[in-house]
């Protein structure tokens, strides 16, 4: 710190930063991107390994042979489901009882904030069925969960069949030390959320459900299963949960171990949206390590039947049964370039750090310029004293910044509150459905925000125009850096994506120079356009390119889904964008049109 308190050296550093600011920024940005790209290469990725002692050395012998039984169950389930049109609760109860489980049901009801058009539901009521296998001579203090979500579009009959066959097999064994809960939920994740909230006796999302009759202590781990065919070519594992939360890496290692042992082909998916990609995502909030296995049936030649999948599950459950403590030994923050390789947080965070350094450098430059411009003429060449308050002596009081800050925050608040609040009014006055009304209001408010600079200028009467925008940009830069830092820490993929897109535009923005170019850049990198762009990119990667109209439709549904997920599961992406990033982005827009 002697470095900073020595005025001579500090002056040297300041001069260095001011002179080389642009090259440093470019260098830092490039370094960030390059670091991120380098994460796929071996020195930065490590092979995964099992850290948990209780699951490591001991091997289990899988004895599951109930393939036919699973198929029969699946066929019966599908038939009953077709007959009743919804989850065959009575049949499930009967079958679970017949394999020797303690069976309970739970009914739930949820009125969505607005109609969900992709799943065609608004007022949802359903029933979850679960059976508990009590561990012999144990006190029901710990449990494991195997869950199968049944929705209108994903029937998962084979998964239900396998669940019942596994339950029958598990019931005959004496080695269980933890209770096992076999859970079949209706309406996909809504049912899972309702069950989890009822199990923990809380109400986070305003779902109404009947209280649970049977419990089995603290849930240690959960596996969700999705299978819709008798044979699978590969098993796809999804780890990312709500708000980008990840399960402990050991659970994934466990899955991978049994994939290798059973010779199964296992793949991995991951995205950056912060929405749960499977029912397991909702478990993570309750500190239950969970993942979703999805059976994929493609045109590959080698296929595996239900016995192979069942054996992998049996092995996983037996090893989880060995656990003495909650999974805690391995990483909670990691990136997975492949199933057998991972990047730990210490290695991937520098990438985001370099990107955010750009914002820091720019902010530092602005800070120094502000001080130089405002300082006395004889001190102009020197660096400012560190103790002096940042803006007061220069005549750009914080008061003048309050107006744009408040207005953009209010805009964000409106973006967050109004679409859902005003859906009925919008639906009355315009010929649109409620769901469309929400999305269109969202977009309208978003676009209306672009008109802000013209309005704020009437409020702001800055006598020193140049210093005004500099101060505003300084605040905006720090605000953005803080937000992106926090996002990158909890959900690295999302944080990095946003940082990579928003940082250059944010750093470049100023009211001089080629304004239309900056404006275009800023619009292109705004959160909503990023979403649109990533949708196109995603479909491009899936080799199903989108036409423009389709893309637009997809964009609208994605927006609606984002809002819905916030209300139904408590996903934080929508509030972060509406209350945090959007107002911040508006500040830059303000800077750009500063007069």
């Amino acid at each position, binding site marked *: 710190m002697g470095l900073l308190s020595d005025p001579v050296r500090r002056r040297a550093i300041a001069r260095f930063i001011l002179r080389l600011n642009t090259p440093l920024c470019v260098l830092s940005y490039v370094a960030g991107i390059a670091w991120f790209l380098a994460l796929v290469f071996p020195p930065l990725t490590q092979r995964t390994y099992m850290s948990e002692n209780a699951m490591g050395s001991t091997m289990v012998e899988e004895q599951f042979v109930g393939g036919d039984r699973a198929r029969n169950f699946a066929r019966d389930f599908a038939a009953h489901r077709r007959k009743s049109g919804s989850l065959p609760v009575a049949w499930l109860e009967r079958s679970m009882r017949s394999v020797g489980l303690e069976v309970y049901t739970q009914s739930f009801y949820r009125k969505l904030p607005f109609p969900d058009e992709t799943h065609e539901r608004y007022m949802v009521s359903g029933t979850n069925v679960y059976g508990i296998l009590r561990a012999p001579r144990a006190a029901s203090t710990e449990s494991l969960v195997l869950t199968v979500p049944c929705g209108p579009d994903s029937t998962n009959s084979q998964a239900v069949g396998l669940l019942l066959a596994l339950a029958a097999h598990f019931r005959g064994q004496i080695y269980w030390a933890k209770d096992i809960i076999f859970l079949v939920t209706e309406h996909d994740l809504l049912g899972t959320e309702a069950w989890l909230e009822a199990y923990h*006796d809380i109400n986070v999302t305003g779902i109404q459900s009947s209280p649970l009759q049977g419990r089995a202590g603290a849930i240690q781990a959960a596996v969700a299963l999705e299978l819709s065919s008798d044979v699978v070519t590969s098993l796809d594992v999804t780890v990312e949960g709500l708000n980008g939360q990840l399960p402990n890496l050991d659970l994934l290692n466990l899955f991978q171990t049994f994939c290798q042992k059973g010779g199964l082909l296992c793949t991995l998916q991951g995205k950056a949206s912060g929405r749960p990609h499977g029912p397991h995502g909702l478990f993570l909030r309750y500190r239950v390590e969970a993942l979703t296995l999805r059976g994929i049936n493609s045109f590959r030649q080698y296929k595996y039947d239900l016995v192979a999948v069942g054996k992998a599950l049996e092995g996983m459950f037996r090893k989880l049964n060995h656990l003495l403590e909650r999974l805690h030994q391995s990483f909670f923050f990691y990136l997975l370039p492949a199933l057998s390789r991972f990047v730990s947080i210490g290695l991937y965070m520098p990438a985001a750090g370099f990107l955010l350094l750009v914002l820091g450098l720019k902010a530092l430059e602005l800070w120094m310029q502000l001080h130089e411009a405002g300082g006395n003429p004889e001190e102009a060449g020197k660096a400012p004293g560190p103790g002096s308050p940042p803006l007061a002596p220069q005549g750009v009081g914080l008061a003048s910044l309050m107006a744009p800050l408040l207005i953009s925050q209010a805009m964000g608040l409106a973006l967050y509150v109004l679409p859902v609040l005003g859906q009925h009014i919008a639906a009355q006055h315009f010929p649109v459905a409620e769901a469309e009304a929400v999305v269109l209001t969202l977009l309208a408010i978003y676009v209306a925000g672009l008109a802000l600079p013209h309005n704020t200028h009437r409020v702001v009467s800055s006598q020193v125009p140049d210093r005004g925008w500099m101060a505003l940009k300084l605040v905006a830069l720090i605000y953005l850096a803080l937000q992106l830092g926090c996002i990158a820490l909890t959900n690295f993929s999302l944080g990095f994506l946003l940082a990579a897109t928003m940082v250059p535009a944010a750093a470049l923005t100023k009211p001089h120079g080629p304004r239309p170019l900056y404006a275009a850049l800023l619009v292109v990198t705004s959160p909503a356009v990023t979403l649109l762009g990533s949708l196109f990119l995603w479909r491009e990667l899936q080799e199903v390119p989108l036409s423009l109209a389709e893309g637009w439709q997809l964009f609208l549904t994605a927006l609606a889904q984002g809002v819905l997920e916030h209300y139904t599961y408590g996903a934080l992406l929508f509030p972060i964008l509406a209350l945090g990033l959007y107002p911040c982005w508006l500040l830059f827009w303000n800077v750009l049109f500063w007069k």
Partner: protein
Amino acid sequence: MAAAMSLAVLLLLLVGPGCWGHAEHPRDSLREELVITPLPSGDVAATFQFRTRWDSDLQREGDTDHYFLRYAVLPREVVCTENLTPWKKLLPCSSKAGLSVLLKADRLFHTSYHSQAVHIRPICRNAQCTSISWELRQTLSVVFDAFITGQGKKDWSLFRMFSRTLTEACPLASQSLVYVDITGFSQDNGTLEVSPAPSSTYQDVILGTWKTYAVYDLFDTAMINNSRSLNIQLKWKRPPDTAEALPVPFLHAQRYVSGYGLQKGELSTLLYNSHPYRAFPVLLLDAVPWYLRLYVHTLTITSKGKENKPSYIHYQPAQDRQQPHLLEMLIQLPANSVTKVSIQFERALLKWTEYTPDPNHGFYVSPSVLSALVPSVVAAKPVDWEGSPLFNTLFPVSDGSSYFVRLYTEPLLVNLPTPDFSMPYNVICLTCTVVAVCYGSFYNLLTRTFHIEEPKSGGLAKRLANLIRRARGVPPL
């Protein structure tokens, strides 16, 4: 009920005389009995009871001093044969003869429920209670699971359950009986067949309902001499339908922790009264460890959506590291209702060395204890305790219209905020250093004001140089 419940190894030391049993009895008497109860689910429960009495020269000293009454509970005990072996050694015949030959560890630990108890208490030898005897009562209850032990078959026999049969009575015993519950399986109904034919039957009110038992007396020579061994068999003529919901007892309870996160939580106990028209009071006793800091003002008791005010509350707050919270309440349970007792708590941060070796496993909270007088369906007549079977005294009847039940809920596992113990020393050193260095210098930088002063005189070298310059007559630097 195939539900596995907690194993409660409970040593109950009741200081003071028993309230019954004034009759004169032989010295060092042993009574042993085995009760086999086929359950509606197709499983079968077996309860052993051994009662030994011996005279003692200890004199009674006045009434029980409640100051010395202690209650302690160990919420978790891993079941293994080590619990059984010393327990068996207390029996007069060990496991050589009598009912105790059935106590084979490998079968007893293939069950879905296992409960073992030792009760010891002084009892009065005469009406004036001038001298006392000691009574040692050992009970062992197991539930054999049709799915595990029976490989799905629901027919049971002694051999199938214990892989042994009875060959002789313990010569030291004064009584050695096997009871088989045949209530509801009477001959005209004919769902269950018991062979061989019992020597007699016994009827009584147990847990508020009439029960019929087939009785086998091991001292009855005809019973064993016929085949050299007694292998009691239970055959279902019409197997019970497992797909139907099973009957529930009048009083049962459930306990759980609600909430998520590592800061707060809530302990909830659900008390079910499934009696169709009778309300009855329950005494709820909770001992909660001090590291769950209870918020007593959040204690809520609701039944049927309305607040239920307990008629008696005794609360003793915890002292950190010294004594747990003790909460005792008398609650009236309305007929056919669920009563929820909930209280919020905050998880305390333990000291570094106070964590167990497996801190991420969580910390156990002992079960709450429910004591209740549950109304009977049929009125019981006053019983002569000495003459009736031992299992009768497990659920003592006070006035004939109700019977006493003590229930233990499941223990709970609560996670406390846990530091990362993988390399505490490194982490502590590193963070302390970083914090100290950063904090110190930033604080320094932020609070001091700096004045730039030109150095008046240079260093030693400069002063030396000036000295030489002055000597040479050249102007100083």
